[in-house]
């Protein structure tokens, strides 16, 4: 492939490949796109893809039917998913597929031209497009900027990225803008760091630009460590070039010629696609020396993390790239002054970068027009935010919504509400650094400042829904256990303080809590927040504080009544057989590993509270729903 040195050459690549994505009306071609991010493959997208490939080859249709493995389509619970794009502009989304159904769709739809209504996401009809993902409730409230290529292009083909105006922004920056102009656009756009803390991206770049030095680094935080979050993985697997282009723009803005992407080793697909993308960009001369013939050089390397949550903290991440234990460093000096290998460095998260090229191309006003405006309440948050929606929610998946959308809209409209007729209890946002938002606050408009004001935080985008069956004390304990495990151990407030908080929670969960433990938790939390060295410790008490704030009654029930209202905390539970429902079949008695159940055949049985180990074997065994936890 020839090195691209001009806009004309870039446009030529676009012209040649745009027809692969937006099929010309008279082409008679079909594009079949299979969601093959990690979650798609885990659900069985591999056999679906293989079946399509086999059928296309067998019919000799490889000229007219293009088969693409794309990134995350966003609708996790419908995986495996593939979409059929016709040259008439139609889009049909097939869900929950397997090889057999795929063969049927191939015959009837791809060859025969008639959509198979049984397997589509919505009913197929002449005057509506309900069979397309675009027209579902799940999609209606979304606005895809960060994810605009995810699920659309083949992430392993740079030409498809270029066909969607890729690498035009770096051309514009290098040829029409000075570094100061780039920074001004970023400042005016109001883009704030999507890693969680929400620091204005333009300001970060400005500081690094102002730092004197011959050598500077641009880094990308792709060490997505929050449990329950997979936004960055989706971007890396679905649109890796967006990150590469943005990092090149950032390098130009601050005067750097070298960068690192620090990516989790647990993301093999993302790593592979990044490696392919970096090689392709180098082959086209879009990365490396003398980019677009402007004399600007930028080299990009990958470094793999090794499973340490604290390495998501910026200084810890840099120490890890330096090949050491990933322990955070005191700030100041800030990385913009003294970062990686002791020189000025900027670090942004994957999702932040994924906005950059489009801001450069479409302008700061375009981006700032979305989201919340600065007001007395806060600085405002422009653009969109991607959330990984999970837990007790009908539509799990990846959603991108404009800032300012209410949590209620995200959960009830996009997410389809809590399944199984259960009652919504809380949404956990921001992972181990974040908090729980209760039903009473569900109308909060999502932006950085609003979430902080109600004791939660934006975080990187994990959004886990909990219903009445989840115990909030147990959830708080779960997150604290995570932080205790992941604390690097360097500073005592975090190392010892979180451990002490965990012990207090364990005491409460075991039924030995006293009311003064709540005050102790509160006091310890204050010390840890103010005295910890890095963000991990400073935010570690949040899950405990926010659950005490909104679910104090649950804590009190555990402490005073020695009762777990959600029937989760084992030590506070009792297994009881309902004599009305029990028919005396003896199944539970035979399944009990400790012989705690007694009773005669055809007469109601009873459980001996002293002997019972609360293993739950009897509940699983009972066919009459006679046994319950109380």
């Amino acid at each position, binding site marked *: 492939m020839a090195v691209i040195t001009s806009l004309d050459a870039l446009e030529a690549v676009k012209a040649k490949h745009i027809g692969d994505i937006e099929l010309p009306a008279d082409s008679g071609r079909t594009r079949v796109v299979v969601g093959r991010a*990690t*979650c798609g493959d885990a659900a069985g997208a591999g056999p679906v893809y293989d079946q399509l490939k086999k059928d296309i080859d067998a019919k000799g249709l490889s000229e007219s039917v293009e088969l693409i493995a794309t990134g995350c389509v966003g609708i996790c619970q419908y995986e495996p998913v593939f979409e059929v794009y016709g040259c008439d502009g139609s889009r049909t989304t097939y869900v929950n597929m397997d090889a057999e159904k795929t063969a049927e769709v191939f015959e009837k739809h791809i060859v025969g031209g008639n959509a198979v209504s049984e397997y589509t996401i919505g009913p197929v009809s002449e005057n509506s497009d309900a069979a397309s993902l675009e027209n579902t409730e799940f999609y209606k409230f979304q606005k895809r900027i960060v994810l605009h290529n995810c699920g659309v292009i083949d992430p392993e083909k740079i030409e498809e990225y270029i066909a969607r105006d890729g690498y035009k922004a770096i051309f514009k920056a290098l040829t029409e803008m000075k570094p100061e102009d780039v920074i001004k656009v970023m400042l005016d756009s109001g883009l704030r760091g999507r890693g969680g803390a929400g620091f204005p991206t333009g300001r970060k770049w400005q500081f690094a630009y102002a730092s004197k030095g011959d050598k500077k680094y641009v880094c990308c935080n792709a060490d*997505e460590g*929050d449990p329950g979050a997979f936004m960055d993985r989706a971007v890396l697997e679905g649109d890796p070039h967006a990150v590469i282009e943005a990092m090149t723009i950032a390098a130009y803005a601050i005067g750097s010629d070298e960068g690192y992407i620090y990516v989790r080793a*647990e993301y093999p697909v993302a790593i592979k696609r990044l490696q392919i993308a970096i090689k392709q960009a180098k082959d086209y001369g879009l990365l490396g020396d003398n980019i677009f013939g402007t004399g600007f050089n930028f080299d990009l390397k990958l470094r*793999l993390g090794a499973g340490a949550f604290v390495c998501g903290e910026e200084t810890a991440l840099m120490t890890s790239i330096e*090949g*050491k234990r990933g322990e955070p460093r005191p700030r100041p000096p800030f990385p913009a002054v003294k970062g990686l290998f002791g020189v000025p460095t900027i670090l942004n998260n994957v999702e932040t970068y994924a906005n950059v090229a489009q801001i450069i191309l479409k302008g700061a006003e375009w981006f700032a027009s979305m989201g919340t405006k600065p007001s007395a309440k806060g600085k405002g948050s422009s653009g969109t935010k991607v959330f990984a929606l999970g837990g007790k929610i009908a539509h799990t998946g990846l959603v991108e919504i404009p800032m300012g959308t209410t949590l209620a809209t995200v959960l009830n409209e996009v997410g389809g509400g809590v399944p199984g007729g259960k009652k919504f209890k809380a949404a956990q946002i921001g992972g181990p650094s974040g908090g729980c938002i209760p039903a009473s606050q569900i109308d909060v408009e999502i932006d950085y400042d609003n979430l902080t004001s109600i004791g939660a935080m934006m975080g990187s985008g994990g959004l886990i829904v909990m219903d009445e069956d*989840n115990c909030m004390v147990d959830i708080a304990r*779960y997150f604290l256990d995570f932080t205790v495990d992941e604390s690097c151990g360097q500073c005592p407030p975090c190392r010892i303080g979180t451990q002490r908080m965990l012990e207090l929670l364990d005491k409460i969960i075991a039924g030995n809590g006293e009311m003064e433990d709540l005050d102790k938790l509160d006091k310890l939390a204050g010390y840890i927040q103010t005295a910890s060295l890095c963000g991990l410790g400073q935010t570690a008490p949040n899950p405990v504080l926010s659950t005490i704030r909104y679910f104090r009654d649950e804590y009190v029930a555990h402490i005073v009544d020695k009762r777990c209202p959600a029937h989760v905390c084992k030590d506070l539970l009792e297994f009881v057989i309902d004599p009305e429902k029990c028919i005396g079949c003896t199944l539970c008695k035979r399944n009990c590993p400790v012989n705690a159940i007694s009773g005669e055949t055809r007469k109601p049985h009873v459980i001996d509270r002293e002997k019972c180990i609360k293993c739950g074997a009897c509940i699983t065994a009972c066919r009459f729903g006679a046994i319950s936890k109380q």
Partner: protein
Amino acid sequence: MKKQPTTVPFRGTAEQEQQLLSVIEKYRGIKGAMMPILQEAQGIYGYLPIEVLKIIAEKTDTPMEVIYGIVSFYSQFKLNYDGDITISICMGTACYVKGSADVLNEVASELGVEPGATSSDGRYSLDATRCIGACGLAPVMIINGTVYGRVKKEEVAGILAKYKE
């Protein structure tokens, strides 16, 4: 999870050692190379026993305590030999709220292996992992790379039976 020391004797070959030496050579002079060296060493041996760390310490002229400090810091580095059959259960939030702790306990009692350990015959190793990002399939169990989604406690014995031969 605390790292458990290995109980399986070292079985490294001369060929593996040759590979390790060429990895160390490849990274000579590159800044911050200890992490990739350890990652590739683990790729060669499957884990990082003391015998391997000694070679790295000697050839990179790095004190052993520095290397051990790095290895014990990151959860991905393994001091323990992986069993022929590796089982991991996701403890991410979505999996946890859908009952992955029950699945983990069930596997542990079924095989008699503690989470984080390898059975002394080297056959099974069991891990509780951080979120693998397949939250839509919660709770998730992975056996030798095969993903089992929406696993129920009662299904564990049936799934494990396939690997008992």
